[in-house]
């Protein structure tokens, strides 16, 4: 057995913001940033097709809120020195294609996509809230507040989608399942890479 010594734990040069669970916070911020970025692109795609239709203003308003969300996560990312996901260029294209594609199915199609995505995101935010509360609600108070607020916003988008006849889309359940599977995969990957 060469050496047989204990493995040496090396000092990282990164200054840990005292006491936070860096790996957990890293993942949370990275995946949320990717999510808001993707949501932005989805709404951009939908606007590109349906911008001048009757649901244009509704989509625009939801898009504006997502832009605010993204801005907030950009700030958090810099503050916590978190690495963005490598897949951003991919989410850029995939999000736009999903948005435009669902919009080409008509207004109801776009709303169905919104419902599916926002439902996934709400559930995802709820999981994160649970994780953070389990860790230490006091330490992560600010982050918890942000995520709770955003979860409420996404829930609102989900309800708006339903109000606009999302469920009347042809093949609604198939579409919804497919999109939600895609979201789960995106979340899984963005947390890690």
């Amino acid at each position, binding site marked *: 057995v*060469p*050496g*047989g*010594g*204990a*493995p*040496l*734990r*090396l*000092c*990282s*040069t*990164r*200054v*840990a913001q005292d006491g936070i669970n860096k790996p957990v916070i890293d993942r949370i911020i990275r995946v949320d*940033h990717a999510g808001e970025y993707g949501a932005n692109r989805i709404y951009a795609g939908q606007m590109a097709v349906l911008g001048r239709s009757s649901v244009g203003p509704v989509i625009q308003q939801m898009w504006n809120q997502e832009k605010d969300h993204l801005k907030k*996560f*950009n700030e958090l*990312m*810099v503050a916590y*020195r978190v*690495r*963005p996901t*490598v897949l*951003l*260029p991919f989410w850029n294209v995939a999000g736009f294609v999903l948005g435009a594609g669902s919009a080409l199915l008509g207004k109801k199609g776009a709303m169905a996509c919104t419902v599916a995505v926002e439902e996934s995101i709400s559930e995802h935010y709820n999981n994160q809230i649970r994780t953070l509360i389990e860790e230490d609600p006091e330490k992560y108070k600010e982050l918890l507040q942000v995520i709770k607020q955003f979860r409420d916003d996404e829930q609102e988008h989900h309800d708006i989608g339903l109000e606009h006849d999302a469920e009347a889309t042809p093949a609604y359940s198939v579409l919804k399942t497919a999109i939600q599977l895609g979201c789960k995969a995106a979340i899984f990957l963005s947390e890690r890479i």
Partner: protein
Amino acid sequence: QHYPPLRALQASAALRRVSDEHKKEPLTSSSQQHFDSPPAGHQPEQKPQGPRPSYTGQGGQESEDYESEEQLQHRILTAALEFVPEHGWTAEAIAEGAKTLGLSVAAAGMFHSDGSELILHFVSECNSKLSELLQKEQKLVQLGEAEKKPIDEFLRDAVEARLRMLIPYIEKWPQALSILLLPRNIPSSLNLLTSMIDDIWHYAGDQSTDFNWYTRRAVLTGIYNTTELVMMQDSSPGFEDTWRFLENRVADAMTMSNTASQVQSTGEAVVQGLMGAAVTVSNAETSRAVR
């Protein structure tokens, strides 16, 4: 990966020579964060075979002069650095280092025979020093006592400061580089390299949250690695050839990024032009059709 404290204590006790003359002040750097009790001021040699300090199992209360295996290794490696120019990154250097701390040369047996841990320890220490340096500079700028440097100058100075730390060990550094590339060491050495580069960009004021984050770090890593290699071959006085090389590479990187943004804006302008032309043509067609 943490060995239970009992084994660590046995190992440490076995290695300690009861000698009061070797209570040297440990040469640890100030920025280690993994250690709960600072080694400075504690006197391990005063407990030869005596009663073990009481502690409660799972990393509970440990007596104040308890030194973890990790802290001991850290002290030995720091002491060993002094002997690297003479012995290279080897078990001999570690053994000599252990001797200066009043420990038996068998202490070198705690480490791999190729000196990997010594090299990784050294790199880690250099990175910490760089981090401290950059932090101090940042404070000065924040207090208004220093000018904020332009990005290319900042990067150049940071890389130069970091590479200068190699100068006392430059003869043996090529050997160290090859050891760092061993598959066994690659995760650690890559980790240290990436966190150093990230630190430099952080203090340079990088706030990118898109793919630029990766591009910038990749470019800087390339600059750092190539400059390091040039430094190995450099025999000019004061390594001036290396610093000139560094300056040119950083300038190249700046040019590249300027060119990239120019290409992007040109591209956007061209697209706008084409759209405008398309609209004009379609209007012309429509008005012709109407006539």
